């Protein structure tokens, strides 16, 4: 058991290092750096000397490998440095936004799982009946509807029907949970619906496949009640592929909700990402990429753990 997971665990570190190298090199290949962008903002072009001085201040005159080493050493100590654009410490910049994005991602995942698993299972059990068709239409609609559009519809409906708008200023959960949920439940629903569509379809097809398996027939032949056949014998097997979809989608949500964040006036990581790229804010981009991809890799590892937990054939490898 532990050998497989240990391998998976150790594999996370070279993967992260790979990400670090790629992002570090890539942003330096893109023409235009933060110093040029900032200086050109000061009416006309700044003198070459001023630009060079700024570069020295940020350490951009150093050889790339040295810059890299300095940065990585910082990251290892969880010190991402300061933003090249605002000069503020990156840890501070990101903290609240990370909390917000993470909360939306978690809530959307809960919405998706609560919708997808029952709907997918019911659709599979009632294959080719009106129930199945209804679920399929619901999930195809989910796939075809952009989350931000659904978000706009939510806001308009709340405004027109209930003459009420969700709060537009972020309140952390630990400050005022009710206020916080009032704001975030809408983006979570908008994103969760679309996300559930993918997972519903996966649940349905995995369930259909599992229900055809010989061991399901064996379970029925033993005289088990339908509920046990489903919950004990079918669901656990069907959850393996569904979990993969849910995990990947969850990891994506953390940094991937640019437009939806804008619709709901949320200062999440997605928006920050876009701004950081626009400003060529090297340190901020690097920090965001490391955090988002680090999270992605971590979710992958957690999925490996869950796979091993669900499937003994993996556990004993």
């Amino acid at each position, binding site marked *: 058991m532990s050998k497989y997971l240990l391998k998976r665990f150790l594999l996370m570190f070279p993967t992260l290092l790979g990400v670090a190298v790629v992002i570090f090199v890539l942003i330096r290949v893109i023409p235009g750096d933060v110093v040029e962008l900032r200086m050109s903002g000061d009416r006309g072009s700044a003198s070459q000397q001023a630009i060079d001085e700024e570069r020295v201040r940020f350490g951009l005159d150093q050889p790339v490998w040295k810059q890299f080493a300095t940065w990585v050493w910082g990251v290892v100590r969880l010190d991402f440095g300061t933003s090249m654009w605002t000069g503020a410490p990156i840890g501070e910049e990101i903290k609240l936004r990370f909390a917000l994005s993470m909360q939306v991602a978690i809530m959307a995942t809960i919405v998706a799982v609560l919708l997808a698993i029952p709907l997918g299972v019911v659709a599979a059990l009632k294959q080719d009946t009106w129930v199945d068709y209804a679920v399929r239409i619901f999930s195809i609609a989910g796939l075809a509807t952009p989350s931000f559009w659904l978000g706009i519809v939510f806001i308009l409906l709340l405004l027109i029907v209930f003459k009420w708008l969700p709060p537009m200023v972020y309140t952390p959960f630990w400050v005022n949970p009710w206020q916080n949920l009032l704001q975030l439940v809408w983006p979570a629903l908008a994103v969760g619906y679309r996300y559930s569509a993918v997972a519903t379809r996966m649940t349905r097809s995995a369930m259909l496949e599992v229900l055809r*398996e010989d061991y399901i027939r064996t379970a029925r*032949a*033993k005289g088990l009640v339908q509920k046990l056949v489903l919950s004990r014998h079918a669901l656990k097997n069907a959850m393996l592929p569904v979990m993969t979809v849910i995990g990947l989608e969850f990891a994506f949500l953390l940094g991937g909700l640019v437009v939806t964040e804008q619709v709901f006036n949320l200062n999440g990581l997605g928006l920050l990402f876009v701004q950081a790229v626009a400003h060529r804010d090297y340190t901020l981009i690097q920090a965001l990429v490391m955090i988002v991809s680090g999270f992605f890799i971590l979710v992958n590892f957690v999925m490996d753990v869950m796979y091993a937990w669900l499937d*003994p054939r993996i556990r004993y490898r």
Partner: protein
Amino acid sequence: MGVLLEVRSLTTEFATSGGVVRAVDGVSWDVQEGETVALVGESGCGKSVSALSVMRLVAAPAGRIVGGQVVFKGRDLLQLSEEDMRRVRGREIAMIFQEPMTSLNPVLTIGRQLTEGLEIHLGMSGAGARARAAELLGMVGIPDPERRLTQYPHQFSGGMRQRMMIAMALACEPSLILADEPTTALDVTIQAQILELLKDLSRRLGVAMLIITHNLGVVARYADRVNVMYAGRIVERGSARELYANPRHPYTLGLLKSVPRLDEPRRARLQPIEGQPPDLTRLPPGCAFAPRCAFRVARCAAERPALAPVGGAGHLTACWEAGRLDRAPALR
């Protein structure tokens, strides 16, 4: 000894894209208490579907039992509510499946899969159920049963999985076991072990058994009576001894000639039955075996022969030319 199970005019169909497949076509057979009956025939002749129909486990919605009765201990199983039928499955009639590799759930322990039947039918639980499960594993010849209970199917060999299936079938001491080719997926030495085990246990526990196989060699050794099935119908029935000594249907004869026999000289050549089984969606009006039959006469293509008594007690065959087969032992 009385009748335990009596299948009357059972008909099961599958709706497929190529048309309706009548996999079991008005078939009747029975099993007496404590008896071992064989159901023999080529691949695709409807053996598994017959057994699944008895359990009412034919894959819906494509498959459907369209007619007949399955009278078990005086009750027609086809008339029971789903809940009452569930109480029969595993408790009164157990089934052993053809594919030991895929018939066990890969994500549940052997112990879990053994105890759940005990829990649901006998109300056992916890340590009691586990002790009984270990006892069952021991009974089917799996060493170190306590430890094995905590393992998963992938840690078992094919032969051990089939033993486990037998243990599962025996768990609630049913009065009938339907063993669907319990050994085809296994290699020859293991086959013999498993069959001996089944025979031994069924005799010791007084369980009646339907053994499904396409191997007449197996039948001779383990069955009291034999039903030979072809294209969804029974074409011959009789005691195993009788069928071996004096087959009265050309198909049975063909099956016998296609397996090696210890009671004949080694040089006797094996003769496979020529041709293919018919397409079940469009069966000929007459005898389904006629196109492949060496004894065919004009009548065979037009009229279907019914099962009728021949020779010894309880020996029936569905062949117009049964008399000719009897008079010509040299043909064998």
